[in-house]
Structure formats: structure tokens, C-alpha cells
């Protein structure tokens, strides 16, 4: 893992949903190192701990992040504006497996778990079906971005206010029944990931999931962001920041 820390210029800021912001950050050195599934660790002015935020777009010279205000720290980050400097340690973590030989993949994002699916959709293009799930119509983000990648998009909401009424697992089951899926990638709430992992296991489909945990160092030194996993039949606490955030679903103990 190779990463840098510096202050970088925010070249564009957009509010793309309620309390959800998109930043485009000029950081050529970090952008060139980044792969889909990795995250950046952002200093929030006035706070001790940095905030880990997944990478939503990898340009030649820029990284895009999309994040939700969850508390005072993310609110402080959201207060930054176009032209301001943002202190980032990036890119961090173990990303998604990218395989040119995969012919059909399913990308699943739940809520604020959808942003890290976008770089994957860009990589797989027409080979990807993107299932996004949100609480309701007003929480929907990034659907136009996903369509632009050429991927098939399937939208679900918990209350049926737009798209399919129900959870992302229903369209996944239908796609799995049709067969031909080489991999499923998912990010979102733990109960969702648990159900997706079970469906993939039942259908013999390779599955990778991106996890979230309260984090301190972000680079694997402090061992704060523990995640119960099994590797080589041995249970151990892996760390979301370095071993993850992307794990093989079969390795995670929910």
C-alpha cells in the first residue's frame, strides 16, 4: 500500500442530496495511486480523528468523494468550499478485485454505500448491473452517473416512492436466478451485506463487500477498526483500514 498526506485543493463542491456532498479534489499523486474501493482519510478542523470517506471517482489528476453529514466532524468537512484546501491521507486500504475476464457483474450500493460502486461501474461498463437502494425518493443519489457508465441501473426504495418497492436483495435474487454472474460487489448497511453474502453463497457467486468501522490511524498501525474474519480456517480480527475496506464476503463473520 502506497499513500501520501498533504493539503489538496477542492476544485468543485456540489450538494447532491440532503446533507450529501460531492467534492472533486485536485491531487494528481494520490489519484494516480488510487484504485476502486479505496478510501481517503480526511482531517476535520477541530477534531482529533480523521474521517474515512470512500472514493467515488478516480480521474487523471483528481479524486471525487461523496459523503453524508453524520455528525460534527463530517459537518466541518462539508463546510469547506471550492478553492479551499482539504487535508487528506490517501489513497488507503485494499480495494475491489478488477477482472477483465468477468462477463457479468452486479454492483450493489445501499444508501451512502453507493458512491464506492461508481468507479467499479466505470471499469465494468456494460458488463455491470448496478442495484441501488435508498430509504425513499429524496435520498436517491448518483443514478445519472451510473447510467453514463453504460451499466444497467436498478433502483429500489424502502418505501416504494421511486423505483422498485423493497430491498436490493430482491433484484439480486432475480439476477442470480438467471445465472451467468461472475461477481457481486456491495457496500452498505451490515444487515444488507449479510443478506447479500448469504444469497451469493447460496448461488455460488463470488462476492466482495466494503465495510465501515470507526477508525483512528487509517493505515493499519493502531488496530482500532477491527473486523471479525476467517482466513485459512482461523478466526482473526482483521482491520478495515488496511486488510479492507473490501473483503471477500466469505471471510467476514457477521
Amino acid at each position, binding site marked *: 500500500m502506497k499513500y501520501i498526506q498533504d493539503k489538496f485543493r477542492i476544485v468543485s463542491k456540489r450538494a447532491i442530496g440532503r446533507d450529501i456532498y460531492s467534492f472533486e479534489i485536485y491531487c494528481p499523486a494520490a489519484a494516480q495511486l488510487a484504485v476502486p474501493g479505496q478510501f481517503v482519510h480526511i482531517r476535520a478542523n477541530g477534531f482529533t480523528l480523521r474521517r474515512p470517506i470512500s472514493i467515488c471517482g478516480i480521474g487523471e489528476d483528481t479524486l471525487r468523494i461523496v459523503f453524508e453529514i453524520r455528525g460534527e*466532524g463530517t459537518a466541518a468537512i462539508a463546510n469547506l468550499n471550492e478553492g479551499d484546501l482539504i487535508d487528506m491521507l490517501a489513497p488507503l486500504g485494499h480495494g475491489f478485485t478488477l477482472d477483465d475476464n468477468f462477463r457479468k457483474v452486479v454492483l450493489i450500493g445501499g444508501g451512502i454505500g453507493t458512491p464506492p460502486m461508481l468507479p467499479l461501474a466505470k471499469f465494468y461498463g456494460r458488463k455491470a448491473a448496478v442495484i441501488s437502494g435508498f430509504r425513499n425518493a429524496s435520498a436517491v443519489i448518483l443514478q445519472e452517473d451510473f447510467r453514463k457508465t453504460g451499466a444497467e441501473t436498478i433502483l429500489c426504495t424502502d418505501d416504494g416512492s421511486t423505483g422498485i418497492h423493497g430491498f436490493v436483495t430482491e433484484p439480486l435474487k432475480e439476477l442470480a436466478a438467471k445465472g451467468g454472474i461472475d461477481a457481486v460487489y456491495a457496500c452498505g448497511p451490515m444487515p444488507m451485506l449479510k443478506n447479500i453474502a448469504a444469497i451469493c453463497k447460496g448461488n455460488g457467486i463470488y462476492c466482495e463487500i466494503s465495510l465501515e468501522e*470507526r477508525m483512528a490511524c487509517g*493505515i493499519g*498501525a493502531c*488496530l482500532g477498526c477491527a473486523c471479525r474474519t476467517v482466513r485459512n480456517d482461523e478466526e482473526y480480527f482483521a482491520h478495515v483500514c488496511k486488510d479492507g475496506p473490501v473483503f471477500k464476503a466469505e471471510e467476514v463473520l457477521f
Partner: protein
Amino acid sequence: MADMSVNVCGVDFKNPIIPASGVFGYGREYEELFPLDKLGGIATKGTTLHKRTGNLAPRIAETPSGMLNSVGLQNPGIDHFIETELPYLLTKDLVVLANIAGSTPEECAQVAEKLEATDVHMIELNISCPNVKQGGAAFGTSCEMAAEVTRQVRKVTTKPLVVKLSPNVTSIAEIAKSVEAAGADAVSLINTLLGMRIDINTGRPILRNNVGGMSGPAVFPIAVRMVWQVANAVKIPVIGMGGVSSGRDAIELMMAGASAVQVGAAIFTDPFAPVRIVEEMNEFLDSKGIASVRDIIGTVKPW
């Protein structure tokens, strides 16, 4: 350029700044950002006789000007440390303080005994971890237990022995005197203060361990007070730590009586903090025309 070198119980440090145990792993992750040679020393992740898996997550919580952690001494065990991590660190130009811990005084002594045959520079005996059920803080909160574990480790090691003290006590000076009498060559303080946060939406503590160790800038004044009290109570050197995040903080802790300074939570905010702190200390000393950082140790003039 001031002389930044210090000596702690016979061990030379090129500068007084040491990343504290637990924040810095065994150094590899930070080497991606800067050469470890810039550090005076490194206090390695607390290591026990056998590997430990640590506590369930969440292990981390933010607090005003600080944080809580309840990692629970997750570590690969002393044999792994000696075979894999220590040889690597010994190739670097810095002092290696092997931080060790155990559930019983005997276990602590066994870990120290294994280090005796190595070239590690110092042992930092952790008698103050708040996050493990047995041993840990329990050793550090009574003078008798603190002395007993120090004695047992002293018996098996000729390495300079630093005992790391808990602030969760009525009189840290009394504990310091007990471990000094039991053979400690130096003391380091403060370990984290026991704290707790609750998510008021769920009624659940944020940490899965319910409670954890508090660190960060919020604890700094407590560290200054305790370093001052201990430095006045013992003859052995004091390594100060607790919320240090700038060169000025490090100078202040040395004025209170610290011979060297460890840096912890500040590294999470700014991974370059230890390197920056050395530079800031040097700037301060130059601005005051002080030739050596050693000249400020214990120079506070109390009212």
C-alpha cells in the same frame, strides 16, 4: 540549530520525541510517509507472551479534543515481535523501546526474559493498560502490585527498564516511588485515562468494551501535572506523554520534568506530528537562544 539529544537512564536519543506505544504499530505503516530515522525512538505496540485478538469493535470514539480507544492489546505475541519486527527496527537509527504487558507478573517476566537475548534498547513495562480484564491497569493501581510486577521483571532483565504508569490512581507519585524502589530505571506517564461515551439514540456505549482509554489534547494538562509531581518524587528519569501535539507542548512537558516525550493521538490527526514536533521544539529553543534541549528539563519555577 539546538542540540536535541537527550539521555534517558544511559540510553542516548538523538532527539526526545518517541511515538507512543499503540499508535504507531511497529513503525512500518508510517515509514511510507517519513524515514523512521527522524524519530528519537519508537515505543512498539504492547506485546504479550502469546498473541491476543483484542476487543470487539467499535474500539474507537471521538471525544472533545481527544478520543477513546479500547483495542485491548491486540498483538502477534513476543516471538513474532522478536523474529519479525525487532530485527527490522534495529536496522534503523533510533532507540527501540519494546512495550510489554501480561496478565500476571510471571507472564510479564517471561516476555522480558525473551527480550534479554535480543539487542532491543529498552523495555517499557505496561502496568497500566485500561482495556484488558486481567493484569493491565490492575497492576498499575496499587503500589504493592506495581512493585511486585516491576521486581519480577527486574530479576530477569539487564535492559534499561521503563515502567509505564496509569493516571487512574489517587497518587501517581506514590506508585512511581514504589516502582523506583522495585528497580525501575525510568518511568513513563501518563497512559490513557479511563473514559466512556454513550450513543444517546441507542442508549449503547459507543465502545463495545463500554469503557476505554482517553487520550488527545484534552488530557495534556493532567499529563503536565502528573509528570511534574512524579519528577519531584523520584530520582529516576521520567518520560512524559499525554496529549502532546506541538513542539510547545513537548517543551512544556520537559519543563515539568520529562527527559523525553512520547506522542500518541496527535499522530492520528497529523501523521507527521512527531517529525513536526522535533522541528517546532528546535525553533523554540533557537528563538530563546537555548543551546541544548537538555537545558530545559525540569526548569519550571513553581510559585
